[in-house]
Each structure stands twice: as C-alpha cells, then as structure tokens.
C-alpha cells in the first residue's frame, strides 16, 4: 500500500518523494519498512499462510529461505542475481513472471528487493510486533522563534512537534487555532458527547478560566463516562438481548453501568482490562469485578429450538477469542481458526492455544445464561453474609469461596442438557429434562464432592414424586431417595446423599403412580454437589443451613458473568481441523503467540495470566491499539488508519514515532490513565486548530492525515439525538438502570417466537441519553441504525460514517426531532421579535453567531411557513399536537428550528 500510494501521489508531491527514493539508493534497505510491505502486498496472497504456491512462503523467515518445490531456495542471501525470486520478477514469459497474472513490480520495488538480497536478506520483525523502548520528540530548530506563520500559537505540547515535523516535510502549515466557541463545542462533544452548558461556555469565553480548566471540568463530568462508554460498548458488543433467532431479552445493563463508572473513575486501563477479562479470577473478587467479566458474556446465546448448545458454546468461545484480539491487539486472529494467518505471523495452533484460555468457563449456551451473578437486596445480603460468616469461621478459604460462589451464582452444577440415556424422560430442548412416571436418566461422569447433600433445581405440577438417585445405573447402590412436591416456580432443594468421593455416573429415576404415564411430573433443570458446609456438628448449623437454602431460592437482579470451571469439570482444548468443531485433533495447552511478548512463568495459565500478558508493558500492540483508537475517536482517523488492524496488512502509521511515543507515554507517564491520554490529545495545538479547509487543502490531504486542519466529523447516532434533546432542554440527566424505550414507529419489533413488546417509556425515560436506549439485536432502535450504529451482535471497532437520504428523513420527520425542534423554538421565542427568536434558536443550537445570510434564509422559511400555517388553521394543531395552543408563529418557528437541527454544522463536530 505504502509504495503504491507514493507512486499515486507523485503528481502532487513528486519532488519530495522522488528525493526520498533517490537518497536511499546507497543506504541499507530496511526489511520492516521497505521489504515487508512489498512482500505483503504483492506476493503473500499466493506465497503465504494459506497458499504456498511452488512450496514457497514469505510469511515466516524459516519458510522464506527454505527449499521450495524446485529443490532450491528462492532467496539466496547475498546473491540477488542467483535468487529465483529476483529472476522471476524480470521474466518475460507471462507464465513464469511474478507476480503471476498481475502487473509487474515497479523498478523501485525490484531494485529494493535486489539490494536487500545482495545486502544479505536480513529478515526483520514487522514494526507492529516490536515496540521501541523510547522515542525522541522531534526537536524544532530554534524553538524560541518557532512560529508557524499561519498559526502563531500552534505549539502547545509535544504532540505538535511530531505533527509539525511531518507538516514541515510536506511544506504545509497548520491552521490558526479555533475560536473559543468553536473549540469549546468541539471539546465538549468529544469529551462528554454533549454541547457545553451555557455557563461553562460563557466562563470560558470571558476568560474566567483557562482551556485546561475547561478540559478538566469536562473530564470530571459524569457525562464523560456516558460518551466514552458508547465507544467501548461497541467493542464489547453490549446489547439488551441475546441475539439469534429468539433474541430474548438479557439483563446485563449492570455491565453497561460498570463501564460508565470505570471510565468516570478513570480506572487504569490495565486494571480495566484485567477486570473485564478475568475479574472472577482475582483474589476475592468484588461484585464490581465480577460484573466487569460480563464483557465476555455479551456474546450471543442461541435459544432457537433444535440448536446444539455445545456448538453455540464453542461459537461463544471463538467469539471471545476473536474479540479479545480485535479489542486489545488490533489483530484479526479469526483467520487462524482455519489455517495459518494469511499475512500476519500467527500459526494455526496459536489460535487454539489462545482459545484454550477461554474454553473453561461455566456458561454453556443455556437459556438461563447461568452463571448469573445475583445482586441481593440489602436484607437478603444480610442472610448471605450470615452464611458466609459461618463458613469463614468454621471452614477454610477454599470452602468460603465455594459457598460464596454458590450463593452468588449457583455454580458449578450439572445442567440438564448434559443428561443422557433418557427413558420416559426427555430433554425438552433448552430448558429442563421432563420426567414421566418411571422416568430415568444418567448424568455421566459426575463428581459428587463427597457431599452429604445433593441439590436439585426443579419445577413440578404434582405432589408425591419419589426420586431415587443411584450410583452408575438402575442396579447401582442407592445414594439418595426423597419425595418432591408441587412447585410452580423454579426451586432449589437440598436432599441427603450418601457420601462418595469419586467421579461416577449418576442415575436418577422418578416414580409417581398417582399420575398417568407420559405426563410431566417433574422438570429438572440442574443437579449440583458441593462440598459440605463446615461446622455441621456445631449447634446453630441447621439454622444457617436453612438460611443458605433460603438465599438460594431468593430472586434478585442478575447479571451474567464469567466463572471458571473447577478442576473436575475442566475441558481440554483441541485443534479444529480447518476450523470445524466437529473434527477435533491434537490437544493444546493455553498459550500466547510467539511473535508477541514473552510469557512470564509467574502468571497463572488462565484468563488472568492472559490479561496480564495483554497489559504487560512489553506487549507491542495493547497500548498502541488503545491510543490509536482514542485518537480515532477524536480526529476521525487513526494514526494507523486501519484501526481494526495493526499488523502486516495495515496501513503504515501516518506518524509512526507519535504513535509509539503516545503508547509509551500512556503506559509510563500516564500510568494507563485514559483521561490523561485524552487530555493530552485535546490539549495539543493540533487538536485546537480551525477545521476550515480549502478545495486545495482537500485535494492535497482529503483525509486530513497530516493534520493541517482541525477535525471535522459527523456526530455519532446517539450524539445526534442527545444533542437535539440537550439544546431543546428535553434531555434527562438520569443515569444507569435498565434500557429505556423512547418512542419508535409501531411495528418495528417483530421477532419469531418472541412476544416481547416495545413498551414506550414514560416521563423522563423518553428523553434519556442514547446509551440507555434498549438495544434488541435483531431490531435495534431504527434511527440509530440509520446513523450507522450497529446491532452489536459482534464486536464493532469502527462505525463507518455514511451520508444518506434516510438520515435526512430521520432528523426531518422523526417525532423525536419535531418535539425537540418545538421545544427549542418555544424556549427561544421572543414575542413580536422574529429575528431575535430565530437568532436565539440558532445560537443555542450551534453556539455560533448567526450570519446575515443564515438569518435571511431562515426568516424566509419562517415567512413561508407562517403563510401556510395561517392559511390552514388545522395545520399547526396537528403539527404541534403536544401543544395546547399552537399558534401559526410557533408552528413556523418550530419548522425553522427543525431546519437548524438539520444543518450540516449541527450534525457535525467542527
């Protein structure tokens, strides 16, 4: 890409680039920046991870210099003219010339490859896979007098030195710094997702405080967490439903609230990472740390009839593996599921070794979504604490953890979809096993933990069902025998069990002679065996035991979380042949790719270790990924433009040294503080430039990758609605809680086998920020979808910004915008002064002084509207149905306000 682009730009920047090439003639060729891009773009599709045509691959060093099918290596170090690779580039015969059936390489490219081989063909690492220890900030000669002509105050911090160095080499100058009202709006939208309050803007404009104070004030607002959580929730694929066919609701909003709080408290990014990937594996995890693990419970859950839970459990594990790498490493590891990575240096086994980290959690694609963390109400928590205090007093730490886990999320248990060999019983697809009279089944290879009790979760329509549990089979010794009575709700009960301490098949049979054959007498959801509660011999135990059973049967708010399998339930992970879970081959152990940072033997070989590996300062991708994406949020373009991918197929960074400098600084100086990183970026002179351009400027740099002007980007889906509600005074500041359902057109929700309804929220819940809008994956809030928000079924790294007529229809016709326009008009209505009414509405919405042309145009719209509304008395009434006495004037002003809300400048952060 790099070279091709240069060639393309020759027309514009010919001299600079040409000089660049010719200077390098005698210099040593650099593999990473000069050779690897050619190999990746021109050769590796046929000679790489998937295809190795002619037995030749350029993906790994050992392959590149190995013998090919011809018996000879294609590259002979130090001997370009003797190397088949070079010969083939010069061939005239189209059958032999490489790249096959593609344009010949350029003379420069051939020259580079030739010199590289002659110089010894030194293989190097791609830049993405090593992070330098430090980066020098470019010095500006004679800094005291450094004054870019156009922008006397450009240099605000070190970021600007990197930007300036590149601008200077391209003979460009930055724009002047933006006016105060403009930069305040840009800043507030970037930090809080909302325009600044009138007071804040005035104080800043009147120089009552500095830009830095403005930044700090905005970063301290709770709205900061809401804005940036929207970004993170795209990555986390957060939604309020489970996805797939049935797409039933899922209560996981506690995770959304956790993200908002974590951002607002500026939880360090390394800790933020560890808690989400492995909060459950931390010592004595807090409820918050468990909630954080819901990050990976945002995967979809398939409740469709007839689907195999194991297949979708595996799909979930694959999604977690892929998402982890997409979110933290800018790497599409998913390719490696089926074969070696086509371009990046990851091997087939690498994928399954990574997957092994995620393959040992308790969740199994069941409709209950177990494990779900129960958030007991205060009174209930007291009971729970009582039980745990007892266990703590008479037992050891391990027992305390077992009881705490069981009370918090009722795992580990054997769920009904694992039961086998049904007789007069049937797994009723996705929920429970149904028993008839004389029904029986087997739980294979269960571990009873030497428990004196067995726990059952069930429902039953009848009294007097006799249940017998035996070891092994129908003839095995009886372990338990008890009677189950009617229970209309799911009930967890404890029954005495003969102690055995081994893995064995468990046989369960039911009998109820009072009920006809083939009638459902028992729905069994799960069976559990946990270690006995300590202190059984002490007085008071039975009271505590009752409290324990009571707690297990209390209902509470829940959130799905990760919980690791105990040793006796551990799964092994095997390679999948060509990515198919049905053909599993060699067993693998958890591990990370060799290409990246080394594993520290002190780390546990589980998700906690993996999360530590990710936030290890030697990991070359974690910090770069984060700073690149934060930069992208602010400037609309990453320093590596392909924010999904920092690797051998990614675009080279526009400012490589700045990327590395920011990454190092983020880890070291800022101690992983995202707020500090944002502050540093928005404090730069680069950020504070005006965003005006000229046709010539867009011609030279259409994507603004050189930063000779400030960012100018259309707002995101939620922001557009939030802003409309904010400027009209409708926006509710209420935070947190279950997703809300603001008005949407009738009939949008229609899902098979799901009777859930969109029930319009009442009161202020209609005007909450977009982040709280209920997101059903198969049918997201339509206007957000139109403005490029996704359905969050999978990790979304980038929302591609589009510009479509359907978007215009939303802001012109959606009742939400009519109501907001009306409020904006009404709040700024000055009796008998239309000029001022329009001016005030405009200025409230855009924070800019109105120009004479704009006023003239809007007044004309006002006059036209007034004329129409005056001609037809009914029109303002139906238009403003929510207003008691809609006057033609207010109708006309509402239409003007609606036009304002449709202006490019309103929809855009400039």
């Amino acid at each position: 890409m790099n070279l091709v682009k240069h060639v393309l730009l020759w027309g514009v920047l010919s001299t600079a680039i040409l000089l660049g090439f010719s200077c390098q003639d005698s210099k040593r060729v650099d593999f990473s920046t000069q050779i690897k891009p050619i190999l990746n773009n021109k050769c590796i599709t046929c000679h790489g991870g998937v295809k190795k045509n002619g037995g030749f691959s350029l993906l790994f060093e050992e392959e590149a210099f190995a013998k090919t099918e011809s018996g000879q290596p294609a590259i002979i170090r130090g001997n370009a003219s003797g190397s088949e690779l070079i010969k083939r580039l010069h061939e005239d015969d189209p059958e032999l010339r490489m790249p096959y059936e593609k344009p010949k390489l350029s003379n420069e490219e051939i020259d580079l490859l030739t010199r590289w081989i002659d110089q010894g063909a030194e293989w190097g690492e791609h830049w993405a896979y090593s992070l330098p220890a430090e980066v020098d900030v470019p010095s500006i000669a004679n800094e005291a007098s450094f004054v870019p002509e156009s922008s006397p105050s450009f240099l605000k911090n070190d970021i600007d030195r990197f930007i300036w160095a590149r601008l200077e080499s391209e003979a460009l100058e930055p724009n002047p710094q933006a006016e105060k009202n403009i930069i305040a709006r840009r800043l507030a939208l970037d930090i809080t997702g909302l325009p600044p309050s009138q007071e804040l803007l005035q104080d800043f404009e009147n120089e009552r405080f500095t830009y830095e104070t403005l930044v700090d004030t905005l970063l301290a607002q709770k709205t900061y967490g809401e804005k940036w959580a929207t970004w993170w929730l795209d990555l986390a694929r957060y939604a309020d439903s489970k996805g797939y066919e049935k797409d039933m609701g899922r209560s996981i909003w506690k995770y959304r609230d956790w993200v908002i709080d974590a951002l607002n408290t500026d939880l360090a990014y390394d800790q933020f990472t560890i808690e989400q990937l492995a909060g459950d594996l931390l010592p004595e995890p807090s409820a918050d740390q468990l909630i954080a693990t819901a990050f990976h419970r945002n995967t979809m859950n398939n409740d469709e009839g007839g689907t195999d839970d194991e297949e979708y459990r595996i799909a979930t594990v694959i999604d977690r593996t892929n998402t982890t790498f997409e979110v933290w490493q800018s790497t599409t590891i998913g390719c490696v599921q089926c074969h070696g990575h086509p371009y990046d240096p990851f091997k087939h086994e690498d994928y399954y070794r990574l997957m092994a980290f995620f393959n040992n959690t308790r969740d199994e694609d069941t409709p209950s979504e177990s494990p779900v963390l129960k958030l007991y109400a205060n009174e209930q928590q007291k009971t729970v604490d009582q039980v745990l205090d007892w266990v703590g007093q008479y037992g050891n730490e391990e027992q305390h953890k077992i009881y705490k886990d069981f009370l918090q999320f009722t795992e580990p248990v054997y769920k009904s979809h694992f039961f086998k060999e049904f007789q007069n019983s049937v797994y009723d697809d996705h929920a429970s096993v149904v028993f008839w009279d004389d029904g029986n089944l087997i739980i294979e290879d269960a571990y009873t933990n030497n428990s004196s009790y067995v726990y059952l979760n069930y429902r039953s329509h009848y009294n007097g069902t006799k249940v017998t549990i035996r070891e092994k089979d129908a003839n095995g010794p009886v372990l338990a025998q008890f009677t189950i009575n009617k229970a209309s709700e799911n009930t967890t009960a404890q029954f005495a069990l003969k102690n055995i301490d081994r893995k064995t098949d468990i046989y369960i049979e039911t009998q109820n002679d009072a009920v006809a054959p083939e009638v459902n007498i028992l729905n069994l959801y799960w069976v559990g065996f946990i270690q006995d509660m300590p202190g059984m011999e002490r007085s008071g135990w039975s009271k505590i035991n009752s409290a324990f059973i009571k707690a297990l049967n209390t209902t509470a708010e829940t959130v799905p979380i990760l919980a690791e399998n105990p040793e006796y339930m551990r799964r092994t992970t095997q390679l999948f042949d060509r990515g198919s879970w049905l053909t599993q081959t060699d067993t693998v152990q958890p591990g990370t790719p060799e290409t990246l940072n080394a594993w520290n033997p002190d780390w546990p070989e589980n998700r906690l270790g993996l999360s530590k590996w990710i936030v290890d300062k030697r990991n070359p991708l974690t910090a770069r990924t984060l700073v690149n994406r934060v930069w992208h949020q602010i400037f609309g373009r990453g320093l590596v433009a392909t924010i999904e991918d920092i690797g051998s197929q990614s675009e080279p960074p526009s400012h490589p040294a700045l990327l590395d400098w920011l990454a190092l600084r983020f880890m070291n100086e800022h101690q992983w503080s995202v707020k500090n990183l944002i502050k540093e970026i928005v404090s730069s002179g680069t950020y504070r430039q005006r965003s005006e351009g000229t046709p010539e400027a867009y011609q030279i740099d259409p994507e603004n990758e050189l930063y000779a002007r400030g960012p100018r980007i259309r707002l995101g889906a939620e922001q557009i609605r939030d802003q409309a509600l904010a400027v009209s005074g409708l926006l509710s500041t209420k935070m947190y809680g279950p997703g809300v359902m603001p008005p949407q057109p009738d009939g949008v929700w229609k899902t098979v086998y799901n009777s859930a309804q969109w029930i319009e929220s009442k009161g202020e819940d209609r005007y909450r920020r977009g982040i709280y809008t209920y997101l059903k994956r198969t049918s997201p809030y339509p206007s957000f979808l139109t403005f490029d928000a996704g359905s969050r079924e999978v990790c979304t790294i980038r929302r591609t910004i589009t510009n479509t007529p359907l978007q215009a229809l939303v802001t012109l016709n959606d009742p939400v915008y009519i109501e907001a326009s009306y409020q904006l008009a009404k709040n700024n209505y000055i009796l008998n002064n239309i000029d001022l009414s329009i001016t005030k509405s405009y200025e409230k919405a855009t924070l800019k002084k109105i120009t004479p042309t704009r006023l003239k145009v809007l007044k004309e719209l006002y006059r036209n509207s007034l004329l129409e509304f005056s001609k037809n008395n009914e029109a303002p009434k139906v238009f403003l149905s929510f207003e008691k006495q809609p006057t033609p004037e207010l109708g006309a002003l509402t239409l003007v306000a609606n036009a304002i809300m449709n202006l490019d400048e309103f929809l855009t952060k400039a």
Partner: protein
Amino acid sequence: MKDNLERLIREKQVREAQAQTRRHFIKSCAQGMGGLALSSIFMGCDPKPSTNTKSTMAFSERDLNPLATLSPPFSPKVKSVIYLHMAGAPSQLEMFDYKPQLHKYHGQDCPQSLLEGKKFAFIKGTPKLMGPQAEFKQEGESGNWVSNFLPHFKSVIDEVAFLKAVHTDQFNHGPAQLFMHTGSARLGRPSIGAWATYGLGSENQNLPGFVVLTSGGNTPDAGKSVWGSGFLPSVYQGVQCRSEGDPVLYIEDPDGITRNLKKSTIDAINQINKEEYAKYADPEILARINQYEMAYRMQIAVPEVMNINNEPENIKQMYGVEPGKESFANNCLLARKLVEDGVRFVQLFDWGWDTHGNIREGSIDLGLRNKCREIDRPIAALILDLKQRGLLEDTLIVWGGEFGRTPMQENRGNKEMAYKGRDHHGDAFTMWMAGGGIKKGAAHGKTDDIGFSGIEGRVSVHDVHATILHLLGFDHEQFTYAFQGRNFRLTDVEGEVIKEILS
C-alpha cells in the same frame, strides 16, 4: 517504460479505489480523474452558482451519492435481482423433487447408514421415512416435475432452471438464513443485496437501491442481519419497506406539513449548507446537500411505488393482491414495480414454511398446501408480468429457502406427532432461478431415490452466490472489500458459477 508502468499502476490503483471507500475515491479524483464537476450539482436548485462552486476541482458522482450507478467489470446478464426466500424452509419433497420410491418406503425405519454421523434439529432415535404428501406431474415442454400444491406454476415452468441438489451445512434457521444471504453462518458479513448495491449502485436515485419486503407475519429468524451491510458502509443495507405504517420509516412528512413547506425547509437547509461549504470546503457538506434533495424526491417516489391501488384490475387479479394487507402477493407485485423503477435488489421474505408437524399450520400436508397456495399464483404472475413488460430478461428471480426437509417424518421427543411433518435438512434441497442469462427449462442436479442426498450436480450456497454475482457482471473471486487486513468476498474462499443453468 517507467512512465508506462506508473500509468498502469495508477490506473490499477484507481480501479481499486473505485471499489474502495468513498474517501479513497476522493483521493484518486483529486488527481484529476473523471467525475462530475461541482457546479453541475447546483444547476437544479440554483441557477446562479456562487463563485466558490466554480472551482475546477472535480468529484466523482459517488462522493456525493454513494448509490450512484457503477458498471460491473464484466458484461452483466441482468440489472436487477428479485430474491424470493421462503423462511422456515419449504419441503422440496412436496413441491419439486419428486421421489416415487419414497412412497414405497413410507413408514419404514430410516436406514441407520443414513443417520450415522448426522445431526438433526429435532429428530431423535430412528425416524420413519415418509412418502411425498403431494401428487406430482411433469409439466411444460421441459417436462420438469411439479406437485399439485402449485397448480399455477406449470404456466411458467419452462422459464425456470431448477437446482435439485443444493446443500448447506447449517440446519438451524437463524444461522442457515445468514449463510444463505451473507455466505457465512456467523454474523458480521454483508448480505448479497448489500454486495450488489455496493458494486452497482442504484438505477433510480429516488428509491433505495436494496429493498426488503416481508410477509407471513414475521421477519426472518436471523433478524435484520440477513439484509445487513456487515462491514460495508451502512448505506448499502437493505431498506425494509412495510405494508403497514410508513412504507419506509420516517418517509411521511409530519402531520400538518405540506410538500411545499418541506421543500422550503430543505431549500433553507441547503442554502445554509452551501454557505458552510464555502467556508469549510468539506466534500461531505456537498454530499449532504445532495442527500437532502434525494430525501425530498424519495418522499414522493417511495409512497408512489409502494402503492398498488392504482394498478389495473387485471394485474391485481393476476397476482391475487389484497391491498392494505401484508401479503406475499402484494410483495410480488411491488417487486415488479420496484425493478421496473430501477431498484437493484428486491428481497422478499415469506415466513411460515417450517413444517415440523407440531401444529396444523406447520403440517406437511395441510399447512404446506396453504403456504403454497399463497405463493403459487403470485410467483407465476410475477414471471409472466415481467415477461410481458420485457423486464424478465433484465431481471434475475431466485427462489428458495435456507435448507430443505428430511425424507423422514419428524418424531420430536421420540414420539409420534400431532401432524405430519419433516425436520430440517441441509443435505439436498431445491432452488430455482429464472430470468436473464438463465437456461429456460433446465434442471440441474439429482438426488438419491429418497431425496436424502444429492448424487449429481450438487451445488453449494457459495455456488449459488457465485452464479448470482456472475449474472450481475462480477467475478465472485475478484469482487472484494478490504476489511481488517483481508480482502473479503461474498463467497469466502469457495464457490463456482453453476454454468449448467446459464443460457
């Protein structure tokens, strides 16, 4: 020599850029390549272009309008596609794939050899084979088979090319529908319609390029992702047009707002946006001006095309439409109107084909017969109507479900069920295509005696996709989109054009 090479590379880059994002395209256009002069877009609304619009800089039409028409790389056989998807999976064994031998085996246990290593959604243990529940006849000059469930179909049977041995590896509705429409059973890929619209744009700038119509009371199991744009820009996703409420969400002006007022509003917005452009020079502002004008025109065009009341009575009868209701017949007539007006891809989903035998509507004899009645006349009408208007040769019609159904009777829970039904089956099922570039009366592929597996001419979902793209003028292996460091295509790493059904 060097110059020549540069030129070639530049040309190649431009070609690639054309298929890339719009931003990339701006870059290549900035080099002076083709496109539409800025001033021309203002001609319509402002007779005296302001000075800044006289800039010599040129943009491509696609910068201003991502749905601008593009020519495919190869000469296309059709301009539009109408894809009829029977959501729930229709039974090939009662419609097109006649298996007289299955009658003989009716009621016998399914041979174990067929069951080994197979997974079914609901069948447990050893199910029994079930003979065809419909009567079959050879019809037309082609002599292809069709059942008595589809009496009208015989009138168009010679227009159609059958694929008798399509197979899929998915046997649950959601994933199988995703696979059928995006080439992947997992979420995140663009649908065929999104690919087509991305590659070709739309012929009619006043209508969405990719329209989705649903009937049968439900949207498909896999949700809106089956017409999603995946990693392509969201402008290429299908736009669901509805029979109740606004035909397209927010297309209707608010109550009390006349067309005149809407025009004044948009004029005001665009005038101010032009002032904004003079200051910022951001081409996105120009695009927005263009989009607002399109929105205004779309508000007229969409309700117009979605209104079937003004169709002549004989046409309404021909399709069997029920104005005001959501019906497959209405949608077929709408599909004709849409392609007639230049819509690129029309996707129909009709829900209710999941004939397990657990309820009456879902029985293979009664329920399926009713569903067939709902589609039979409209489909025949659609083909004939397109033909009589000379549109059939420019249109591809694709018919199918997400998989087929088992030759065995379903025995959910290992019990006899209330009605006759068949379980999900991906090994062999029937699809058909008709229209431009299609060999009339062809029948490709053959299943074994009981219709369990294909024994000749097996084709995969990827093959079907490759064929659709081929007819639209694309080589499915070259039609790619770069995402996350990889060039993605609809057919992933597979797919072969099914030449046997091409004329």
